[in-house]
């Protein structure tokens, strides 16, 4: 069963990966992805992530369940923050565990592609010159065509 957490405070990447890795001990391969708030050359002051309570949890659970079934994962982890974040902070992480590396890699990429475009999160950036909602990247939508 996937471990899914939606949180409004920083999380400890390394500690989370250690705990996940220990929990999926029979797996031979563990892949993680972490998204980090870039400082954009010092121009980004902070990021705010809005989400849709209720739908967010359901969407993440469905995406993780899909991944687990498609690639017989030993386990999957999704952590995503909302609220205010500062440059250098981790926005989210996914981790996947499988018997061999190919499955762990592809499942992590699948999770990320869906999480980017199908989980109800919206990022707003406050830069030195003002505030703006982050626009969806067209390649994030087209990435879904792979699956």
């Amino acid at each position, binding site marked *: 069963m996937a471990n899914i957490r939606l949180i409004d405070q920083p999380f400890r990447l390394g500690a989370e990966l250690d705990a996940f890795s220990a929990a999926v001990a029979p797996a031979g391969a563990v892949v993680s992805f972490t998204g980090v708030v870039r400082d954009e050359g010092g121009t980004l002051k902070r990021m705010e992530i*809005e989400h*849709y309570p209720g739908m967010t949890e359901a969407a993440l659970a469905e995406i993780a369940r899909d991944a687990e079934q498609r690639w017989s994962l030993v386990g999957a982890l999704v952590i995503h923050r909302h609220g205010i974040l500062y440059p250098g902070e981790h926005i989210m992480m996914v981790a996947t565990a499988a018997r061999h590396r190919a499955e762990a890699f592809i499942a992590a990429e699948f999770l990320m592609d869906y*999480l*980017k*475009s199908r*989980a*109800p999160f*919206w990022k707003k950036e406050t830069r030195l010159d003002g505030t703006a*909602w982050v626009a*969806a990247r067209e390649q994030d939508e087209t990435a879904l065509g792979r699956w």
Partner: protein
Amino acid sequence: MIDVLYFAWVRERIGVAREAIDTEAATVADLVDELRGREDRYAAAFADVSAVRVAVDQKLTDFDAPLAGVREVAFFPPMTGG
């Protein structure tokens, strides 16, 4: 009565995060037309519906989706998580 929710810049343009709307609209598109006719702030939010996504009872869907029996409709821009 349907709970209508707005997120991100859709919320900012409309000025509220959630409201209960008494409507006879048959589909999401009908509801959008009805809202657009009400006030400028709705017209501004829905000026370009190709930039707006919709969820009905917390499932992503499209503007043709019927509203019969629906409790909750949400409008928002394309998602930017991850």
